[in-house]
């Protein structure tokens, strides 16, 4: 049924030609490597320990989601997007739902809007927590990973209770959310807020302030503002290079324009700035959750929609801010029940394209730190 395992070629021919220089060494990092968080394959050209060139090889978990979606209805295709960026699956689903709603011109009930934003921010928190642990693990500190998971687990429990799943929730549907909030949601979320407020200072104590960590991160993988824009970086990666690109601020969706929060911007452009952006973003997300948790309006959680959704002929693009950056859904409809073509603009793909530029001239240990600070999720890149 499945294609037989293909024997992989060692290196593409155009790199192998440069191999004559004796000081250079070509080394593969990934697909089975502890620091690539998945099946990213990097072909690195080294001179001693200094990186000359990094070339990402993708496609190890390419599932052709875009092609799959062409045969799925507008209700069905949303679940697939959870499998792209599995750490912010909620936000991906949200982006798809927004795009379908844009096409159908459905007005989402106020309650559903708030629930969506709450879930988005909780997902962002969970994603950043995992990133924090993985980031520390990349630079060699193993303990923070477990500490991060302790808080992440509470979020997962909240999600599990309301949405029914821990990672790939499929909670958003066109017109609202699938089920109403669980009665325990508010109390549990408040407990989590109290817990996390005390723990986020521990994060700083354990990792942020650590002199070794700071030395590993500062002035490493510098990405200038122009380069960040040119490479199409979004999310914390770009905001660390002082590019204002928070979709929640620039093109507010749902209730973001009524909320008090800052767009976190750092100016360094190095790994440490990217680290700080995410750390500060966690506090911002926490404050958003705090603002909303007591103000969930009563009412319907789902708008009335037809059983079979048909988008009018046309093109629809919606953008949303995931934990990694701008996620775009581009639907081309021919008026049928299934999309004619869907394109997912994933944040990780563009962020990864800047990796070579960032890592050139640094050490192999820095590459790991840079990859960690980019917060790559490989299914998001491969799609």
């Amino acid at each position, binding site marked *: 049924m499945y294609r037989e395992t293909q024997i992989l070629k060692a290196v593409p021919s155009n790199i192998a030609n440069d191999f004559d220089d004796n000081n250079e060494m070509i080394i593969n990092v990934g697909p089975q490597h502890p620091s690539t968080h998945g099946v990213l394959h990097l072909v690195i050209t080294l001179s001693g320990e200094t990186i000359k060139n990094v070339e990402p090889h993708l*496609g190890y978990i390419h599932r052709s989601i*875009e092609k799959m979606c062409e045969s799925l209805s507008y209700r069905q295709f949303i679940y697939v997007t959870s499998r792209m960026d599995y750490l912010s699956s909620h936000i991906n689903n949200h982006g798809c739902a927004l795009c379908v709603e844009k096409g159908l011109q459905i007005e989402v009930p106020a309650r559903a809007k708030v629930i969506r934003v709450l879930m988005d921010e909780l997902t962002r928190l969970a994603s950043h927590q995992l990133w924090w642990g993985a980031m520390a693990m990349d630079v060699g500190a193993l303990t923070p990973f477990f500490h991060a998971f302790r808080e992440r687990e509470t979020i997962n429990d909240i999600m599990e209770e309301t949405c029914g799943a821990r990672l790939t929730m499929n909670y958003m549907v066109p017109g609202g959310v699938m089920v109403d909030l669980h009665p325990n949601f508010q109390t549990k979320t408040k407990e989590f807020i109290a817990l996390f407020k005390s723990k986020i200072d521990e994060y700083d104590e354990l990792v942020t302030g650590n002199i070794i960590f700071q030395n590993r991160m500062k002035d490493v993988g510098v990405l200038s503002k122009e380069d960040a824009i040119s490479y*199409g*970086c*979004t999310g914390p990666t770009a905001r660390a290079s002082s590019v204002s690109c928070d979709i929640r601020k620039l093109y507010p969706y749902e209730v973001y324009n009524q909320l008090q929060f800052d767009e976190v911007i750092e100016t360094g452009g190095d790994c440490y700035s990217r680290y700080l952006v995410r750390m500060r973003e966690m506090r911002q997300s926490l404050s958003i959750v705090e603002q909303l948790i007591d103000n969930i309006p009563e009412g319907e959680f789902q708008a009335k929609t037809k059983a079979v959704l048909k988008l009018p002929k*046309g093109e629809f693009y919606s953008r949303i801010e995931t934990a990694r950056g701008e996620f775009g859904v581009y639907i081309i409809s021919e008026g049928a029940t299934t999309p004619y073509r869907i394109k997912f603009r994933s944040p990780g793909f563009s962020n990864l*394209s800047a990796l070579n530029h960032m890592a050139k001239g640094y050490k192999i240990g820095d590459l790991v730190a840079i990859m960690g600070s980019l917060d790559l999720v490989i299914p998001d890149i491969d799609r």
Partner: protein
Amino acid sequence: MSNEELKIKLSELFPSAVFEEGGEWLTFLVEPTNWKTIAQQLRSSNDFDYLFCVTGVDWKTHLTMVYHLTSTTHRHTLVIKSKLDRNNPEIETVSDIWRTAEFHEREAYDLFGVKFLNHPDLRRLFMTDDWKGWPLRKDYEDPINMIKL
């Protein structure tokens, strides 16, 4: 800048410009042959510095390349569409203007078979180097990996 203003401005810049109506953003149809010069002018005169989405669409009779451009200073968005011949799709690369295009164009080459002229490193991105066919085209058949529901 609103769509109308942008349209007026672009009409001044490119007198022969063709626009497509409908849609959220202004859509600008370009010929693949002069796409490179238009791209350079868009980048320099109108400050479209951020290319956030590049994709191809297979319309069974022809292919279309779609570029979504935006400006990080003025916040206006423009959609560029370019019609390509399906049997020999060729278009100039813009990877030297927006470097993010390098990967996005490789993706489009991989999945649609669009050849980007002067691209620095046009190879398969997701598929293996010896893969046959262009998977996102509508007539692509793979009896092994595709399961018809």
